[in-house]
């Protein structure tokens, strides 16, 4: 059974259409990410679920009950904001108790117990009496998370909760979110523009582009089998090269040919190759290219190469050293290329 069902959600501001009919169902306990660049409508969709924005058309159902026109406080949800939105005049414990108090959940003692449990989950039970501004950014974030899970909502909404943290804290919080989700099994809708977050946290990723769902699926499936050029370039840095398909081979602009593992209709198409799937060598590869730039990344090098007049990016081990201007060859296993519509 789905905890959250969105049917034909449309949203326009004046003449601008932000969402063009979104259909989405989230199963109980599922962790779904809305992934997309800024302006793709993902945050608007989340706010519609929360009841903070109205819909122009379509319906929202939470736990099988239609809530399209109910105000936020009548919906069984909790939302965590990018800016955390902790109430500055209340202590950590009072912030976490706030949803319980407002929704009238349980007795005072019962509420205190639930606050304590929620703060233990995020490992902040020793900070209960502090004010939000006495905490670090990472701690404030965890208070916001505790406040979101304390009321055990039917649907948990997370609006880019990790984007204000530095890289190290973000990775820690990712692990923490995975563990908390495994423990509590809250139905979660997570908005992010960061593909790594979406891929590492979710059961299912919904890739959005221009107010539409571009593609959805399990992270692995989405990453390995993108169906459009957009999906392919947004998830992992894919090299997209215009080619012509002829006799099961991709023909490049300069006449080079690459055998394909999959059948594809003859005619113009786009060849997608991920930078980590391409093997770079001095000689012996299937395709010839020229080194344009070399970037040292620490654990390896990134090379920018010229392949048939197109710039492509390739990752290579540090043992290989090519200089700009050198000739190089590329090989890629037939199963790792994708042919997309031109």
């Amino acid at each position, binding site marked *: 059974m789905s905890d959250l069902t969105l049917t034909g959600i449309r949203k326009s501001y004046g003449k601008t259409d932000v969402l063009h009919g979104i259909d989405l169902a989230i199963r109980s306990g599922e962790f779904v990410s809305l992934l997309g660049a800024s302006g793709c409508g993902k945050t608007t969709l989340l706010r519609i679920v929360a009841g903070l924005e109205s819909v122009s058309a379509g319906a929202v159902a939470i736990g099988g009950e239609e809530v399209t026109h109910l105000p936020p406080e009548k919906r069984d949800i909790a939302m965590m904001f990018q800016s955390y939105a902790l*109430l500055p005049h209340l202590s950590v414990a009072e912030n976490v108790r706030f949803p319980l108090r407002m929704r009238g959940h349980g007795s005072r003692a019962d509420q205190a117990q639930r606050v304590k449990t929620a703060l233990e989950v995020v490992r902040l039970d020793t900070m209960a009496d502090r004010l939000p501004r006495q905490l670090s950014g990472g701690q404030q974030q965890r208070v916001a998370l505790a406040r979101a899970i304390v009321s055990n909502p039917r649907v948990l*909404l997370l609006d880019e909760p990790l984007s204000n943290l530095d890289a190290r804290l973000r990775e820690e919080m990712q692990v923490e979110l995975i563990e908390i989700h495994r423990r509590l099994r809250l139905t979660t809708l997570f908005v992010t523009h960061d593909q790594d977050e979406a891929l590492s946290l979710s059961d299912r990723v919904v890739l959005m582009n221009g107010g539409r769902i571009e593609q959805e699926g399990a992270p692995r499936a989405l990453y390995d089998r993108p169906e459009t050029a957009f999906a392919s370039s947004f998830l992992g840095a894919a090299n997209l090269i215009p080619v012509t398909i002829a006799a099961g081979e991709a023909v490049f602009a300069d006449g080079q040919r690459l055998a394909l593992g999959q059948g594809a209709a003859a005619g113009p198409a786009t060849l997608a190759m991920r930078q980590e799937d391409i093997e770079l060598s001095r000689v012996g590869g299937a395709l010839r290219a020229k080194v344009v730039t070399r970037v040292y990344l620490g654990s390896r090098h990134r090379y920018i190469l010229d392949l048939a007049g197109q710039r492509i990016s390739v990752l290579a081990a540090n043992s290989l050293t090519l200089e700009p201007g050198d000739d190089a060859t590329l090989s890629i296993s037939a199963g790792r290329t994708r042919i997309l519509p031109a």
Partner: protein
Amino acid sequence: MTDRRETWLLLAPGLLLLALGFLLPIARMLALSVDGPDGFTLSAFARFFQDGYYPSILWRTVWLASIITAICAVIGFPMAYIMARCNPTLRLWLVMLVILPLMTSVVIRTFGWMVLLSRSGLVSRTIRDMGFGGRSFQLMQTETAIVIGMVQVLLPFMVLSLMGVIGRLDPRLEEAARTMGCTFLGTMRSVVLPLAVPGLVAGSLLVFTLAASSFVTPSLLGGARLEVLAGAVYKNVTQTLDWNFAAAQATILFAGIALILVPYLRLGGNRHG
């Protein structure tokens, strides 16, 4: 070193004005209030508290200022909230509308109220026609008239102080409260109001001091019977020419306002400190 000198240079005009225009006259007033024919005396203060007349004026002054402040806060808070949250064009119009009363002369404005509130005036007549009040009912020369006239002028101080503070609050806090089960009014009470306390304190401070020290509006709308302290001072200076007694009254007004405001400021400071 130069930094410090520049700081002093920048401060100098303001400090000079404050010293010459405020501290010096206040010192002179304090000196005058304890000055008698034979040097130091507290006789002026003794005279103030001699019978119930002057204390009752003091009490009326403080009481009216409190009522005016409270009404300004109750009317001003929702208005300031809407002004802080509406779009910039509407906000500009509302700000203009709010400060419009300040742009007209106090005399003209007050005479306008006199016309409306007098026995044959529109407001008094309407109230009589609706069956409230007796045959000779009128609002002129009542405390109500003073309150109405003062609230109109002092409302902008409350609204603008509150608007500044509410405008700086993150609207996400209100949205967060809504997603946590707060109704709109609940959000006002549990989130916006507590966080707007500094603005409320600043606005109340302005309204209260201005209300307690005003005398044109109270004397015109309240009449001779409903005297306030500032009016009494004025009368002593211009009519009885008893400057020592006037200085004593001014000192008492000054001390009375300070006595009420200091704990109030503390309240604002603590809630947010």
